[in-house]
């Protein structure tokens, strides 16, 4: 079963990449772009049939490895 996870920077944490991308987009003529924040996305194939079990496993993984909770939040989608 496939579980998808999004990891984003916490509010207020500087996102230098997002900032550079936004400025580039503005420079390319996409002037209406006000902010870009970049995060990570994971497609995780778990050997598990029950969704709740799989998700709770992934949650555990997020806390232990995939997200750096000091500066990041995660969301299982």
């Amino acid at each position: 079963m496939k579980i998808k996870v999004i990891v984003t920077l916490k509010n207020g944490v500087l996102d230098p990449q997002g900032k550079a991308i936004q400025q580039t987009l503005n420079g390319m003529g996409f002037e209406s772009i006000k902010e870009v924040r970049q995060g990570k996305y994971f497609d995780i194939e778990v050997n598990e049939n029950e969704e709740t079990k799989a998700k709770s496993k992934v949650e555990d993984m997020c806390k232990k490895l995939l997200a750096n909770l000091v500066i990041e939040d995660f969301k299982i989608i």
Partner: protein
Amino acid sequence: MKSSVIIFPGSNCDRDMDVALKKFGFNNKMVWHNDTALPKSDLIVLPGGFSYGDYLRCGSIAGKSKIINSVIDYAKSGGLVLGICNGFQILTETGLLPGVLQQNKYLEFICKNVHVKINDTKNKYFKNIKKEILELHIAHNEGNYFCSNDELKLIEDNNQIAVTYCDKDGTCNNNSNPNGALKNIAGIFNQNKNILGMMPHPERMIDKYLSGEDGSIFFENLIGNLN
């Protein structure tokens, strides 16, 4: 011979390249990324570094800079364009060279000497070169060359693989592949072989007190071919 080195915000091998080009006889000019016109040049160099912090994908944002359109025009008209390291990444991002440079296989930045084998000498860069295997220096986090099978076939059929990682005796295999690059590819040409992108830094190897001197061979040969 006239050369131009483009400086992007975050380029950091621009000075090194300038020093090397001048040492071997080029009359070099530095060009700012926000300029639109290139000075008259026999060679354009996109130097190494971290243009735009390597943000998004290495080379992607530099690929949208103002000057790049002139570089593309220049290249399409047959002018020589050399991209080293980040310059190579920029060339693939603009589509001037096929493929992409992904993160190194072991996910670590690598700074060390490697050997590369020159695979094609029917071009302005390597014609007459006096050594087939050069010891050069790499310093990158994203040098893991990749392209689709179809593309690879085209590249191979047209002898576009310029240099491949090898050991000091010229053997190319997994052990001599520092970053996981497809087919040990360290550098490639475009179809017409006027554009060369490569990960190793010849400009860091230009006198015997540095990590080696084989960079000198590269530059001496290049200017010799242009003269």
